[in-house]
Structure formats: structure tokens, C-alpha cells
């Protein structure tokens, strides 16, 4: 499989690609402070019940094994269209997503804005002040491959594959990422259809 095609090409340069700020900006207008509700990390408090959170957690761990990355993490758009950190196959994955949410930039935002995979070989080597802060917050994560999660053709979020060492993401990595992003979408729409617990909160 070729690395690039005209409409769906990841930037696999060490710096990755930068989406136009105007396009990315719609994801950046409002973010939640990740520290405002520490209990939100606890399982079983969601309206969709503990099984939804556990299902996402298990799926991310399976995806980490399949992709042979150090981990996989997920950001999804909320009701206002803002990308929020949802989870990771490990704590450092969720921290990577919180870092992107806090800085309002990163591979996930670029991937969703551009509608294609975005590969960053080393967060520390990426141009821009924002990325330097992101690299510090996301440590020990160094390399990130973000792939859009599409639901009915629209990007609902991004799946992030990451490594603790700099990494050149290959066409094979990207192919695996796109397949797993499709499965993530299949899982999420079904979790979204589960019965909501209105009485527990």
C-alpha cells in the first residue's frame, strides 16, 4: 500500500502536518478542564453504565496489541463538537489525550480537521510553541499516529496510536490504524444505542 494518495494522505515527516487554524479552530473553541472532575476517571459513573466504559477500555487494549504500538487512545467530539479525551489503553494514553485537550492542538485535532491520518514522528521535534508544551505534557509519549474515527462519513473523533520513542509511521501502520478506526466507529455507535441509566446520577 502506498503511503500517500491525493485525498487521504498522512504527513509522515518528522514534524507532521499542520492543519489550517481556521479548520482546526472549530474543535478548539471550548475544552473542559481535565482536572475539574477527577472522579470522572472512575468506572461505573457514566449514564451508559460501567459496561460502556469497560468495553471501550478493553477495545483500546486489544487495539494496542494488534497495532503493536505502545498504546492506543481515543478523543471524541462532544455535543458542542469539541474534541475531548475519552480514554486510553493505559493511563499515559489518557494523559496524551488530556494534553491535546488542554493545549487545544495536536495530531488528533489535525486529523479530525483534515479528515485524514496525521503522523508525528516526534512531538518534541514538531514546529511551534504549542507542540513544545504538548510534548512536555504528553511525556513519556513521543510519537503519535492519529486516524479519524468516521461515523456515516463524518469524523466523530480520532484514534491515537503512540510510542514512547520517536517512530517513523509506515504505510502498514496507517493501514492498521484505519481498519481499527473503522471498528472503533462500529463499536461506539452500538454503545451509543445502549439503554441510558437516568436514575444513577
Amino acid at each position: 500500500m502506498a503511503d500517500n494518495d491525493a485525498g487521504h494522505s498522512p504527513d509522515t515527516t518528522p514534524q507532521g502536518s499542520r492543519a489550517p487554524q481556521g479548520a482546526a479552530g472549530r474543535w478548539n473553541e471550548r475544552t473542559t478542564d481535565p482536572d475539574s472532575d477527577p472522579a470522572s476517571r472512575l468506572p461505573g459513573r457514566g449514564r451508559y453504565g460501567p459496561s460502556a466504559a469497560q468495553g471501550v477500555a478493553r477495545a483500546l487494549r486489544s487495539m494496542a496489541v494488534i497495532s503493536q504500538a505502545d498504546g492506543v487512545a481515543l478523543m471524541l467530539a462532544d455535543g458542542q463538537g469539541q474534541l475531548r479525551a475519552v480514554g486510553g489503553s493505559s493511563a499515559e494514553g489518557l494523559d496524551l489525550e488530556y494534553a491535546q485537550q488542554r493545549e487545544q492542538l495536536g495530531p488528533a485535532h489535525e486529523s479530525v480537521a483534515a479528515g485524514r491520518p496525521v503522523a508525528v514522528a516526534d512531538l518534541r521535534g514538531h514546529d511551534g510553541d504549542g507542540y513544545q508544551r504538548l510534548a512536555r505534557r504528553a511525556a513519556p509519549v513521543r510519537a503519535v499516529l492519529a486516524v479519524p474515527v468516521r461515523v456515516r462519513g463524518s469524523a466523530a473523533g480520532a484514534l491515537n496510536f503512540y510510542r514512547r520513542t520517536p517512530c517513523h509511521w509506515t504505510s502498514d501502520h496507517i493501514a492498521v490504524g484505519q481498519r481499527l478506526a473503522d471498528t472503533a466507529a462500529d463499536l461506539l455507535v452500538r454503545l451509543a444505542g445502549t439503554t441510558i441509566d437516568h436514575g444513577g446520577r
Partner: protein
Amino acid sequence: MPIDTAALDASLDRLRKSPHETDVARALRRIVDSVHELLGYDGAGIMLIDEHERLLYVAASNEAGRSLEQAQANAEQGPCHDTYVQGRMVSTKDVRADARWPQLAAVLDERVRAVAGAPILLGGSPVGTLNVFRSEPGEWDDADVAALRAYADLAGELVTAALSSQEHSVTAAQLQYALDYRVVIERAIGYLMATHRIDAVSAFNRLRRQARDSRRRVADLAAEILDGTAP
């Protein structure tokens, strides 16, 4: 568990408003395509159990792989069959020469040689298998096993979510049956193992054959065995 449930809820609320396809079989087919293309085997498939405790394909990457279904049904033995009954990974470097399934070679497509299967679990019990094969004999290494198990786990998450969302499809109904009756069937298999001093696969085959011969559902016969009313 590194999940932000508040953010997950907000995202699922948004997705809830978006209509989507309602047949989990399509999603399972995408997993089979993914396994087939990415792991580089000669074929892959997912089989789920039906109310007669038969493993039936919901997705197969090609006809050679599809022969695994009919061949194992005819022979009442095989690696996928064992994967389901035992609820664990089963593999063989050459299914045609494996002494565990002597009846299989005669009815199986010649292109199917090395086979591996991983159970698909629903609520901790097997409801089907994800299986792969190669056309040449060969060992399955740790990476193969880990990837296959991880894909089977993903398939398990999908079918679990499909049932939780009360999906209306043939596949979902099939899975609901498996979920509802798996416990009684497992208990009946255990009873037959202890009573007749046979292994799980033999007990499973005995139960299934007796149900077929008496034109009853396996789950109904299993219940009768356990309450002592079976003939």
C-alpha cells in the same frame, strides 16, 4: 481503568443522534476483512453458534475458508469446533495430518492446512470463533496468537455492544439465544462429562446429536438432562 466517563457520555450522547446500520454481521465482516488483509493469512472467518449448537459463518474471506464450516459440521470435529467447546485458543500446524481430527481431512478443502481459532466471548462464555488458515503447513508463533486473540476480543466487544443496544437483526437474535442458554448447555456438558467419563468435546457432540435425533433444541434437552426428565 483509564476512561473519562463524563467525556465518553458526552460523545455517546452525540453519536446517539446519528443513525447507523443495525446489523452487527456487517461489522464482523469488516473485522474478518481486516484480519485477512493485515495479518497476511490465506483466509479468515467468524462463525457464531446457532440454536442447534452449530457453528455457522457470518463472515468468511473466501470459499476455501468457508469449507471449514461444512467440513467440521459433517465430521463433527475440527479446530474451530474445539475452540468453541473448550473456550480457548486451538491451533494446528497441519489440520490434514492432525490426529485430533481424523475425519476432517476427507471433507476439507485441500487449500486449508495450518488453522488457528480464538473464541469469541459474550459475558465470559464462548458464542463463536474467529479462525484463520494458511494454505501451507506451519507453526503459529506468539505474535500470531496474540493478534488473533485481540481481534477475537474486539469481535466480542462488538457483539456485546450489539446486544446491549437491543439491535434487531438475525445475528443479534442468534447471539441472544446463545447468551440466554449458554449456561444451561455448559452445565449439561459438565454433567455428561462426569456421568459418562468423557471429555468436553465428546459430551458436546453427544448432547447435540441426541437433540438432533429427538428433534429438540439443544437448550431444551440440556434443561431436561439437568432436571432429570430427559429420556
